[in-house]
Structures are given as structure tokens and as C-alpha cells.
């Protein structure tokens, strides 16, 4: 069992999920190795967000196995699940910053509810360090509404990072951003991975982002994976749904 | 964080003030119901409480001194009412005070009224039972009053008849008054009657002046009891007097026998003088009483005087109790006359 920690940090087997009889995910299986960046490419409506929510326990799948850090999700009670969740960072598409709180409070909110007890000084230091790394230090006391689109993305990332998660899940990290900012975010993802030694699952429909952040890609179409491979492999794949990602 | 601290403080003040207002309200209601002031429990037993409920006020000298704290039925004719009285008021309520049931205003709640007792009795202690006076039905009182008035007029007619005969020198004297004891008795009767009628005159004059007898009747049950007794006595005394005068009247045929004693004659003269005054007074009284009862019956004039006149009512009260005493002795006298030797003799002769 010890060895499995090294082989896969996330393992999903035969996952099925449907809403009102409409299948959204069908027979999804994949693994995430420690330190790996995995890209899941899919158009909107393909079931990407649902997949991410199933992995983190926000949604219950109809059937299938989810193993995180070698623990079977379905067997955990609420408290252990909450402990496990703190080891995962989630970067939402719309950043999902708490808009009644300043940037500092957004980060503090998670820090204060960590299972680890920090001193006040430790907390301040950690918040400032992370914001500094993401270039947000001078926006520390701003409210989310005052931030630009790119800053909000980074702020969402900062909040996901504040508890030093082992896995970070990105939901459409570059959607709604101009190409320059989009590139900036992609680079940031790579840098974060280097600094904090995290593993990531990046869900996107943006091939440039996918190409910039990783080589291993899974293509999701109508609720199931239709292709897997590197950028180069996939470019040669004749399937139309795959080729669609290479247009533009 | 100063803004947050400030908000926290405002919230604290907000809640605190709310709790204070609530507590004050509770306290105010509580004091009204004597929950927080020391009080003493006393009792009174009534046959009917007329819708009195727990929480009604208890009044002493017109001041709220407590509340009704419990009402229990003891038996078919007895309802025990527990009163919780403020400790401060207790020293002023004497053991012979009387509890009765009244109303707060025209449509108001029922209330217990404690009529002050007299100083010679000790003050109340917890657990004491007050004398209770049942409110009297006003219609009954008025009815009695009317009968009395009727009787008085009959009596005075008879008296007029007698005195007329005496004035005319008709021979009743010779027959009757050899017995000086009897003369003395008759003298006393007429003197008493005189006093009674004077008193009645006084009262009825005051009543005519419009000083709230109705109020007195409604509020003060002691008074109505007194009045009641008085009326009853009056009925009795007038019946007696009627009897006497009838007999005297029937005694016509027996004079010519006893006309020798001049001192007796003088006595009889004085007696007849007294009798005359009495008769005239009685006539006035009966007229007054008739007028009053008519007014009361028609419900005019005095209604506005309701519930206000404790000072006058007090004086009426004493007058009536004096009157009552007078009547009692008058009744005794007339009893004595009836039983006297002379009259028995009189009737014996008559029977011959």
C-alpha cells in the first residue's frame, strides 16, 4: 500500500454520473501520479466540471470508485473527508472569492479553519508570502469586486494555495482572459507546481493553456474519454472531436 | 479591525438595551401584580363573587393595596377569595374591616373593596379572614323602603285620629289613664317617635338636596344593610303603633270613670303635645320618603352623583345607625305597651 502513494495520488475507476436520467459521465477512469500535471480537455458541456466535482466529493457519482491519497472516498465519514479535502486546492472558473471579505480575509478564512493551529504571526506571514509570489501583495486589503479578471484568477489560486495542498484542481483557469493574461496564468501554474511540489488536474478547453502546462492530455467528449496522449500525439489523431481543439 | 470592534460594541449595546427594556417591562407588570413587593395573604369568604377573577385589584380607602391571588369554591354557598395585600398597607387594615365586591367604573373590572374597621380591633395578620359583606340587591332595599313609607302614613293617620279625639276632649282619658306607668311609657314612645322622625327628616332633607344616596346605596353595603334593618324595624314599629292606636280607638265607650287626678291630666296633656309633633313630623317624613322613592324608581336626577360622595355617605351612615338604635328602643317600648296591664285590662273589658 505504501508504494501506491507514489504511483497514484488520485485514482478514479469506472465513474458514472447522470442528472435526471441524462448521462453526464460514463465509465471514467484515470490516475494522477505525484508531481504530475494532467490536462483534461473538453468543450463546454462535456462534463469537465462535473468530473472535478465528483473527484472532490462536491457531487456523489452514481457508481464508480474514487481513491484519493489511498483512501476510498465513499468509506470516509464527514470529518475525515473534511480533513482530506484540506489537502486539495480547488481553483474555480470564476475564482469564487468570498465577496464579503477582503483578499486577506479570503485567505485567512481558510487558514483559520485548518486543522493545523497557526499563530497569528505565522498566518500573516504565510498570507503575505503567497500573495507576494502571485504579485498581489499591494491588493491585499482590496475587496474581490475591486480586482481585475487576471487578479481574481490569481487571487483564487492564492486562496487554493494557502493551506499548501498536495493536489490542485484547476477549473478552466484561463477562461475569460485575454491571451496575454492567459499565458501569464499558464506560466504561473507551472511555477507553482515547481515551488510547492504539487500535482495538478487542469480542466480546460483552451489548447494553448493545455500545451503550456502539460504534456499528458485526456480528451473528454460527451461524458467519456475519447483520446489520451501528448500534444504531438493528439495533433495527429484523425478524430474530428480531437482535431477541433487544434483549430485556432 | 477597529470597525469590527465598533460593530461588536454596537451590537452589544443594542442587545443589552433590548434586554433592559424587556426586564423593565416585566418588572412593571410584576409590581402591578405585586410579584416583587412583599405582601401578606388574607382571606374573605363570599356567597357570590359576581365575576371577580384572579388579578383583580383590592382597594382600601380608594387606594389599590393588592390583588386577588386565588379564588376557590368551598361549598355551594361559599367562595373563598385569597387576597395578596402589600405589607405597607396591612397596619391600617383592622380585623373588623369588611370586604365587599364592587366595580371599577361603569364597565370596569370587579374589585374587592375593604371598608375600614375601627381602631379598637387589632391590625390584620397573614392568614386572617376578613368579614365579608354580600352586596345587597338594590331592588329589595327600595321595596322595603316603600312598604315602610306606606306603614308610616297609616300610623300617622291613626295618630292624627287619636290626637283629634284628645283635642276634642272625647272621653278616652277617664277610662285610660289611672295608671301612671302607662302614661310614662306612652310618653317615651312619643318622645322616641319624635326623635326618629326628626332624624328621618334630616336624612330625607339631605337626600332631597341631591347628595348621592344612590351612590351610597350602590357602593356601600354596610349602609344598605343598615337601611334594610331600619326599614324592617320601621315596618314592625308601625305595625305595633297601628295595633295600639286601633285598640285606643276601639276603647271609646268606657270613659267617664277616671277624671280626678290633675297631675295625670297634665301629663296627658304633655303626651298629647308630643304626639302631635310626632304626627306632623311623620307626615313630612313619609312625604319625603315617597318623593325619594319615586325619584329612585324613575331613575332621574341622582344618577350623576354615582360613586362620589364618601363624606356625606359617612354622615348618612351614622345617622342611620343612630336612627336604628332609636327605632330599636321604640320597638321595645311599643312591645311594653302592648303587654302592659292596663291594656290587658282594657281588652278584657272590651270583651265583656
Amino acid at each position: 500500500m505504501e508504494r501506491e502513494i507514489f504511483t497514484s495520488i488520485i485514482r478514479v475507476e469506472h465513474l458514472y454520473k447522470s442528472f435526471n436520467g441524462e448521462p453526464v459521465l460514463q465509465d471514467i477512469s484515470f490516475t494522477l501520479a505525484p508531481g504530475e500535471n494532467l490536462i483534461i480537455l473538453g468543450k463546454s458541456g462535456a462534463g469537465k466540471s462535473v468530473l472535478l466535482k465528483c473527484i472532490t466529493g462536491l457531487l456523489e457519482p452514481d457508481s464508480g470508485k474514487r481513491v484519493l491519497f489511498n483512501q476510498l472516498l465513499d468509506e470516509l465519514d464527514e470529518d475525515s473527508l473534511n480533513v482530506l479535502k484540506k489537502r486539495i486546492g480547488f481553483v474555480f472558473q470564476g475564482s469564487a472569492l468570498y465577496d464579503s471579505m477582503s483578499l486577506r480575509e479570503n485567505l485567512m478564512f481558510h487558514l483559520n479553519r485548518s486543522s493545523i493551529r497557526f499563530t497569528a504571526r505565522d498566518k500573516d506571514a504565510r498570507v503575505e508570502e503567497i500573495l507576494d509570489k502571485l504579485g498581489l501583495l499591494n491588493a491585499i486589503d482590496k475587496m474581490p469586486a475591486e480586482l481585475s479578471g487576471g487578479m481574481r484568477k490569481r487571487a483564487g489560486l492564492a486562496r487554493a494555495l494557502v493551506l499548501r495542498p498536495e493536489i490542485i484542481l484547476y477549473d478552466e483557469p484561463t477562461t475569460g482572459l485575454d491571451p496575454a493574461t492567459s499565458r501569464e496564468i499558464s506560466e504561473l501554474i507551472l511555477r507553482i507546481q515547481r515551488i510547492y511540489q504539487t500535482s495538478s488536474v487542469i480542466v480546460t478547453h483552451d489548447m494553448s493553456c493545455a500545451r503550456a502546462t502539460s504534456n499528458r492530455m485526456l480528451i473528454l467528449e460527451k461524458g467519456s474519454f475519447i483520446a489520451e496522449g501528448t500534444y504531438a500525439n493528439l495533433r495527429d489523431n484523425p478524430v474530428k472531436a480531437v482535431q477541433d481543439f487544434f483549430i485556432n | 479591525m477597529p470597525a469590527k470592534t465598533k460593530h461588536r460594541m454596537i451590537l452589544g449595546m443594542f442587545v443589552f438595551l433590548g434586554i433592559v427594556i424587556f426586564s423593565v417591562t416585566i418588572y412593571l407588570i410584576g409590581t402591578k401584580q405585586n410579584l416583587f413587593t412583599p405582601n401578606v395573604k388574607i382571606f374573605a369568604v363570599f356567597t357570590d363573587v359576581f365575576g371577580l377573577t384572579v388579578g383583580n385589584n383590592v382597594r382600601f380607602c380608594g387606594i389599590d393595596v393588592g390583588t386577588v391571588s386565588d379564588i376557590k369554591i368551598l361549598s355551594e354557598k361559599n367562595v373563598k377569595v385569597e387576597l395578596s395585600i402589600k405589607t405597607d398597607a396591612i397596619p391600617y387594615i383592622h380585623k373588623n374591616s369588611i370586604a365587599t365586591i364592587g366595580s371599577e367604573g361603569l364597565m370596569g373590572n370587579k374589585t374587592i373593596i375593604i371598608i375600614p374597621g375601627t381602631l379598637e380591633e387589632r391590625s390584620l395578620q397573614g392568614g386572617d379572614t376578613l368579614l365579608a359583606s354580600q352586596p345587597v340587591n338594590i331592588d329589595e332595599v327600595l321595596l322595603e323602603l316603600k312598604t315602610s313609607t306606606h306603614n308610616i302614613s297609616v300610623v300617622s293617620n291613626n295618630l292624627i285620629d287619636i290626637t283629634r279625639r284628645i283635642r276634642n276632649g272625647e272621653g278616652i282619658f277617664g277610662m285610660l289613664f289611672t295608671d301612671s306607668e302607662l302614661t310614662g311609657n306612652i310618653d317615651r314612645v312619643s318622645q322616641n317617635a319624635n326623635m326618629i322622625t326628626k332624624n328621618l327628616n334630616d336624612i330625607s332633607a339631605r337626600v332631597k338636596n341631591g347628595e348621592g344616596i344612590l351612590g351610597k346605596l350602590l357602593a356601600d353595603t354596610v349602609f344598605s344593610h343598615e337601611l334594610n334593618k331600619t326599614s324592617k324595624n320601621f315596618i314592625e314599629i308601625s305595625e305595633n303603633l297601628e295595633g295600639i292606636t286601633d285598640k285606643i280607638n276601639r276603647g271609646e265607650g268606657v270613659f267617664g270613670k277616671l277624671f280626678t287626678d290633675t297631675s295625670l291630666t297634665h301629663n296627658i296633656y304633655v303626651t298629647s303635645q308630643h304626639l302631635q309633633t310626632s304626627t306632623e313630623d311623620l307626615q313630612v317624613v313619609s312625604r319625603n320618603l315617597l318623593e325619594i322613592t319615586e325619584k329612585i324608581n324613575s331613575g332621574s336626577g341622582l344618577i350623576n352623583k354615582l360613586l362620589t360622595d364618601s363624606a356625606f355617605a359617612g354622615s348618612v351612615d351614622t345617622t342611620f345607625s343612630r336612627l336604628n338604635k332609636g327605632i330599636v328602643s321604640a320597638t321595645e317600648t311599643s312591645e311594653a305597651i302592648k303587654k302592659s296591664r292596663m291594656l290587658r285590662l282594657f281588652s278584657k273589658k272590651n270583651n265583656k
Partner: protein
Amino acid sequence: MADNGNHSGPSGKLADFFTDLGNLTGFTADVIRKALKKKPEFIEFLRQSYLAGYRSLPLVGITAFIMGLVLTLQMRPVMADLGAEAWLPGMVIVAIVREIGPVITALIFAGRVASGFGAELSSMRVTEQIDAMEVSGIDPFKYLVVTRVLAATLMVPVLVIYSDAISFLGSFLGVNIQDAVSFPLFLRNAFNSLHFYDIVPATVKTFLFGFAIGIISCYKGYYTNKGTAGVGIAANSSVVASSLAVFVIDLLVVQLTELML
């Protein structure tokens, strides 16, 4: 539940209603369970109390003052016909304490706070803020719902106390427009008519009002499901449903009080 609103027939609406009511019951049970079980989010509770309670005071105060004043003026002619103007303060205060104070305050609270709760929670749901908490192992239910329900439950009674007191002042002014009644006399008249059996059910009622408003508005907000449009719907239906609940509870409490006293 994506099928909500797909039914158009009356039976569908009825089914929706019962589903809603069932979910609401489960939701209420969750709130109570979590409120009792876990360490409370005290700071958030205080913040919500401040926002929902203290911030509602001006509105509640103005309304209460006007209610007290108008009620006195409106009742006056009837009392004058009976020659019982002296009873006006007592009558108004009993009406305010037993019924008008709690209900009007609860309705204002529903209008101001329930719509706020509904809109805030539903917008947090739509922008994934609730998911963000959940995914980080923070119980959003405890943080967002329990604190708000608790704040509403405790703040409505406090507001009602203020509302009653302020209505009282309004009534005093109303009496003094035509009569000259000193404040102590007014106070005495008013409190002579007030009993503990007026205060107790009225107070119990206010807690229930607050709880119902909190529960319903949080439920509507927390389980919104129609995107941005859902925010408006949640705010609207929070107000409608909680106002209705206030009246239903009022009816039940009055009946219960009648039975018990």
C-alpha cells in the same frame, strides 16, 4: 433538482410544494443538528446579528412609531363614543404587544433580511463560493446557514422589544394630540392593561418568527438552481414564503395560547 418548474399542471405544482416542504423539513433538521453539534462560528454569528438586527432598527423603529401613533388616532373615535378615552393607552399597548408589534416587525424583518439572506446565499451558490468552502473542508452550512438562522432567531425578539417600546412612544404622542396625558399616567394606564399572559406567548412567538424567517430564506438561497436569475427568484420567494410563515405561525400560536390559558 433540474426538474423544478418543468411541471405546469396543478398536480405538478402540488407535488413541487410537497417536495419543497419535505426538503425544508430536512433542512431544518440539519440546521438544528449542526447548531447543536459543532463549535459555532461565533464571529460570523455576531456579524450577521449586527447586520440583520442592529441595521434593521431604523426601519423597524420608524414603522413602529407610526403604527403606535396611527393605531391610537384610529381607535380614538370608537373609544370616545364609549366615553372610554382613558382606556386608549391600555387598548393600544395590548394590541401592540400581543399582535401588531411582533407581526409588523417580523414582516419588516422578512422584507429586509430574508430577501438579503436569500439573495446573498443564492449568489454565493451561483458564483461557487459555497462550493469553494465545501471543497476546502469548511462546512458552509454551519458557517452560512446556522449563523444566519441563529442571528434571525435571536434578533427578531430584540427588535420586537424595541418596536413595542417605540410604538408605545408613538401612541403616547397620539394620545397627547387631543388630550393632555402625563407620561406617568399614560404608563400606568397602559401597564394596568398588560399581563404576563400577554407577554409570554408574544415573546415565544417572536423567536418562532425569527427562526422561520431564517430557515426559509436560507433554504431558498442555499438551494437556488437557476443561475443568475435564481438570485432574484430566491430573494423574492424568501420574502413571500417567510411572510406567509409569519402569519401561519401567528395563527397557530394564538390558537395554542387560547388552548393553554
